[in-house]
């Protein structure tokens, strides 16, 4: 039985401007409808397979984000969404920003853009499902 059809997503906001979050939610609507791939937005990190992180990790959000990610059971995939987690974008150099994200966790996949298009996020999720599948088969552990 193919297992790669059931990725459940948990969404963490680490001080994002909400642009990426709105684009992510557009995916769940009737136009893109990621539920046809089995994607479900879950409310608890313990139910999730894929964690999507938006925002330039702020000082306040950093510890919470690490705690949330530690609560996601293995195998898991971490996606960074937008330019902020990659490079801190326009917030770079701010006293209250501790990004980029890969300073703190192993990021499996990065989707760039400010904000990224829903099509790009969709491609990212499909790629993440492939990584998830490889992790399930225990080919490699991060």
């Amino acid at each position, binding site marked *: 039985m193919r297992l790669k059809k059931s990725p459940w997503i948990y969404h963490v906001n680490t001080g994002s401007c909400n642009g990426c979050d709105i684009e992510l939610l557009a995916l769940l609507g009737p136009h893109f409808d990621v*539920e046809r791939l089995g994607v479900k937005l879950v409310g608890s990190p313990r139910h999730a397979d894929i964690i999507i992180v938006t925002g330039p990790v702020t000082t306040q959000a950093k510890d919470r984000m690490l705690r949330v990610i530690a609560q996601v059971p293995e195998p898991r995939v971490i996606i960074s969404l937008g330019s902020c987690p990659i490079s801190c974008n326009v917030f770079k150099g701010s006293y209250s920003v501790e990004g980029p994200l890969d300073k703190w966790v192993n990021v499996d996949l990065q989707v760039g853009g400010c904000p990224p298009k829903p099509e790009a996020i969709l491609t990212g999720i499909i790629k993440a499902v492939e990584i998830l599948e490889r992790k399930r088969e225990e080919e490699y552990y991060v």
Partner: protein
Amino acid sequence: MIFFYTLIFPGVLFSLVVALLLDGINRKVVARMQRRRGPSLLQPFYDCMKLIKKDNLINKDARKSVFLSAPVIALIFACIIPCFIPIFKHNFIRTSSDIIVIIYLLAIPSVAMILGGASSGSPIASIGSSREVVAMVAYELPLVLAVLSVTKAAGEQFPGGVTFSLANIQMYQSMYGPLIGEWVLIPAVIAYLIIIPAKIGISPFDIAEAETEICEGPLVEYSGIYLMSFKLIQWIKLFIMTSLFIVLFLGGSGVSTGIVGVDLLLNTLIIIIVSIILMFISVTFGKVNMGRVKSNQLFKFFWTVPTILSLISFIFVSFV
């Protein structure tokens, strides 16, 4: 034979497969009604296989023994109930008062969910547990009244004027026609259909597992196979409620060819198809069209509309 009944045919394996099928159809129909493509029909099977392979995390504040045994106990009791519901003329486990047994066994998964949520050491889960208690108190009274009016209506031919045996109720209906045709029981039918979504915790009555509000309530700390067991119980309960409806109000399915095996297969298929139709009427339609009610609204609603409806039926059946 009892092991075959409890483990395979009307018991564990069969009810699991039917539950997953009902879940898949429900998700697909909801998606089509919202003009989406929707997941494939087998999506719940994929979800289950995934959750089995996933890690189990246990909160360090959780009371481990209760936390881990609650989903197992709930699943076992939910899977036993289909054995008490007759398919055609086959009673798999025959008792003289099936209905009382079924009503009590149906309460056990909810109680297990309350215990599991309360023992998981999370404040969100305890909110969910307390809401589940409110929902149980709200829907049990009209459910029992609706079922009692059926036992009273079908029991006029039996000693004592009341029968709690599903086989007797089915026999009465095969002689005098299905009870849904009697106008005094129409309010009870409506009340029963309103209760189904509350009993299994589906929108608009999903106050305990409010996904967007309290992150699935009692299930918030569960992961992996334990989460899967609670997710399955919802849909097993739906199948039990709809097949109970078929026996109580429609007189059971009654296709007979003379060969036991073929009879059983045909009647099972009919029960599954009627269950899907009933699910569409009472669960899917409400889920798509209505938002979630608050817990005080749910309590007020259930102790007024369905209670009065089933009380009307009960009074008319008993005294007129």
